[in-house]
């Protein structure tokens, strides 16, 4: 499994900065919103937690289709499926590599982007905590979605369609935690819920993804 995680990370780095690109997309979405919405600082502050979370979601989403697609196209996936590594481990490794290349850097870079959107000063700590806790769930759910759509042409768009509704709870609790934190209210409930979602997806999603992969490879 370690071999697979390392290979995926290496491929991500080789193929033109896997780290950089998810980040860059996050940055761009956050920058584009003010262009659309207008430059007023108070409105921006008001919508900042939501926009940051939606942007993180979209950035995670955009790299999902590559989780299995590349291995499917060049024929690695059947080879992996007939290898001694169980498919559940393959799915978990893929999710881990996706999180390291997307979720983790997103979390780290969210703070400076918060400045661009005039995020309330009290909210920063919560933003960091909520993203760190929530992004693994995004990667895990996304891996399941990628497994569902592997082998379909135009998988990218279909994938978004399938995965985004699954992201709604994470989004709601994540943004709520940051908003409450920013307003000085207690944010423990949404944080607990976020943690619960991540733990639950960690326990279930690799199995679901492996199941679905087996069907798709048939």
């Amino acid at each position, binding site marked *: 499994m370690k071999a697979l995680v390392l290979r995926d990370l290496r491929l991500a780095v080789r*193929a033109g900065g896997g780290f950089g690109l998810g980040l860059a997309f996050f940055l761009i979405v956050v920058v584009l919103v003010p262009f659309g919405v207008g430059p007023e600082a108070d409105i921006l502050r008001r919508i900042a937690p939501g926009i940051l979370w939606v942007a993180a979601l979209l950035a995670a989403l955009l790299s999902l289709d590559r989780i299995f697609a590349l291995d499917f196209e060049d024929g690695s996936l059947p080879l992996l499926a*007939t290898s001694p590594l169980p498919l559940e481990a393959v799915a978990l490794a893929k999710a881990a590599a996706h999180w390291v290349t997307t979720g983790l850097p997103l979390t780290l870079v969210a703070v400076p982007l918060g400045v661009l959107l005039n995020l309330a000063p009290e909210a920063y700590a919560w933003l960091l905590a909520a993203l760190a806790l929530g992004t693994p769930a995004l990667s895990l759910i996304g891996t399941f979605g990628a497994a569902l759509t592997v082998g379909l042409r135009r998988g990218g768009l279909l994938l978004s369609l399938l995965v985004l509704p699954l992201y709604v709870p994470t989004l709601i609790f994540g943004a709520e935690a940051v908003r409450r934190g920013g307003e000085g209210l207690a944010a423990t409930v949404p944080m607990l819920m976020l943690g619960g979602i991540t733990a639950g997806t960690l326990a279930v999603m690799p199995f679901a993804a492996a199941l679905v992969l087996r069907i798709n490879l048939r």
Partner: protein
Amino acid sequence: MLTVDALAVARGGVPVLQGVSFKVPDGTALILRGPNGIGKTTLLRSLAGLQEPLSGTVTGAGEESAYASHADGVKAALTVEENLAFWAEVYGRAVPEEVYAAFDLEPLRARFAGTLSSGQSRRLGLARLGVIGRRVLFLDEPTISLDAFSVRMFADWLRDVHLAAGGVAVIATHIDLGLDAPVLELSPFVAAPEATGGSDEAFL
């Protein structure tokens, strides 16, 4: 020994082959022959466990088998060495130094696989078989794009390394590999039009 008994396989919900039975003793290979579209790929995928057969049994494959398809899972952004090292690690082994010579990859070791010619890239795909150390190989047109010299090299490896060590290989191919192995012609096994099985059956 690989034993296949009365196997029936379907593709896209339609039965393709039926009543396929054969035995491949340790240390020998079997060549599958048959015109395009008869079901060689479908049969090999069933043997490798990638799809369920409609009926019949396969014994002696399972955990010890490996499958190589038309596409060979070569990563363009990794070097030749890294490609092989990855598969070795997945199978919990080390890359034996001999494979580079056996598949004429010595001068290409440090090249990114994306810069190989089609034949070179296929040789890399085949070298994977020398790395993973599986006893039972299912090979789907392994020599596509290879020149005559490389075909002979591959046949030599198969005979002198893989089969000599007691391995088994089932190979679908349209050309003559120069391998002294029995040939199974698949034409007699084409599924009868009224053959049953397949997911469409319930609607017929």
